[in-house]
């Protein structure tokens, strides 16, 4: 019912490799039948490592970093042209901010006073292989966005009250791009993975997955041997 309504709020996941989180959310929302998740990487379905529009609820395909900031700009521009009130949210990774196209997009979004557009930065402090600050330092990130003309909020990305309050007060300032930097912990809830660059992209064994699921429930830590096989 909301999938094609032009007055819907739009979500663009520019950080495409986060799509498992979207799949999980869509299952919770009843948009995606949980049974389909076992079709992951099967040619019989369309569930693979990055978002695609064959999955109901996904607005645009992504996976190539730094694309959806500008795509979301186009949508926000059209909504403004048509006098719409709906909002456009684009989620970016902090590693993704290495791509110049992201900053180009911030400049253009600011020039066109797109206060109906929100760039949410998943500031988990990691890129593919290491901490962002050890490779391409981003701090002070708040100042970078402000200097580019955006109005910026920075919150704890795991604090649902802060998230709720922040996302229900738009625009932060008239005629300005909204940017929400969400400080998060990569692998939050799984101490054996949290903040472990070598545990970012692994083929965990069946056993490891089961113990990780228990760990998520707060039981014992998991003994992990699988090494990362980062393909980035």
């Amino acid at each position: 019912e909301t999938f094609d309504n032009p007055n819907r709020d739009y979500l663009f996941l520019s950080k495409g490799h986060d799509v498992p989180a979207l799949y999980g959310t869509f299952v919770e929302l009843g948009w995606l039948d949980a049974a389909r998740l076992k079709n992951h990487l099967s040619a019989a379905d369309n569930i693979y490592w990055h978002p695609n529009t064959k999955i109901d609820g996904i607005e645009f395909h992504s996976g190539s970093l730094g694309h959806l900031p500008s795509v979301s700009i186009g949508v926000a521009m059209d909504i403004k042209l048509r006098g719409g009130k709906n909002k456009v949210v684009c989620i970016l990774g902090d590693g993704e901010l290495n791509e110049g196209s992201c900053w180009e997009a911030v400049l253009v979004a600011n020039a066109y006073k797109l206060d109906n557009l929100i760039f949410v930065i998943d500031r988990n402090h990691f890129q593919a292989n290491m901490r962002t600050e050890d490779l391409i330092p981003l701090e002070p990130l708040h100042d970078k966005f402000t200097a580019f003309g955006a109005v910026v909020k920075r919150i704890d990305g795991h604090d649902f009250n802060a998230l709720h309050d922040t996302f229900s007060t738009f625009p932060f300032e008239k005629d300005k791009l909204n940017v929400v930097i969400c400080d998060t912990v990569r692998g939050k809830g799984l101490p054996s993975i949290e903040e472990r660059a070598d545990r970012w992209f692994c083929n965990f064994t069946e056993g490891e997955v089961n113990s990780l699921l228990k760990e998520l429930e707060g039981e014992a830590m998991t003994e992990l041997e699988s090494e990362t096989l980062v393909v980035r």
Partner: protein
Amino acid sequence: MTYEELLKQTALNDERFIVMTAENRALVRTLPAVLKGRFIDTGITEQTMIGAAAGLALRGRIPVVHALSSFLTMRAFEFIRTDAGIPNLPLKLSSFIPGFLSDGNGATHQSIEDIALMRGIPNMTVFAAADEDDLVKMLPQIWQLPNPSYVRICTRTSLYKHNDFEMGKAEVISEGSDVTILTYGFMFEQCLIAKDILESEGLSVGLLNMRSLKPVDEAAILKVVKNSEMLVTVEDHFQTGGLYSILAEVLLENQKTAKVLPIALKEKWFKPARLNEVLEYEGFTGKQIAEKILGTRVNATQPEIALTEFAE
């Protein structure tokens, strides 16, 4: 009718149209005042312009996008391929100063691999206009296609009055049994001259203005292969990936062969200069083309070549 007038009328009559540019206003100078919110200049940001155009197209708009050919097709290539090609969105790319028309800019601005690049994108359609008359006859249909389209823009005035455009079809200027020249875009002007010179030398000369490179007019190609001793492809493009390659693909697909002389840029960028001097230096004037085809000198005179508006 000029390109700008056609675009203005089209956009005023159909609010789906959005005119965009990466600060190349040469073709659209009067449109900002007329189209207001539906004219979007994203500044010198080819990638953001294409991504935003895709977002607008998602909302049902038809973005007509303007940029210098080399930056549009190379700087923004991945955005065109991924944000317009994959979802098959109707972005209409107006590619400014392609081929020799970049004259004195130098290699940085020379877009002589654009046909190869653009035709390699699934769903993308590829066109080239010989001059402004040809252009305004082709664009209305191109702008209504549901697919993304790439058009080499040429707004030079020409003496030749073109036929109406039929999607995917070449314009048959003449048929000839000795030789048929196949060309597209700006080079049409010089091929017309070459044809006249060759005819005065007693040859029966065919000339095809291809207009559409993808889809290409296979029937027209196969016909000239049958009826012409020799074919000549003429293009201000690298020999690899352009019309010569397209012709080779058509021949192979139909298990045909032909004697073909490719006149193209061979693994090099061309000499930057005033346009007439570029053609002279690189051997692409009508007279030089005729001489290459004949294999001998001719004493015909090469008509004057108008300069580009910037070089006057």
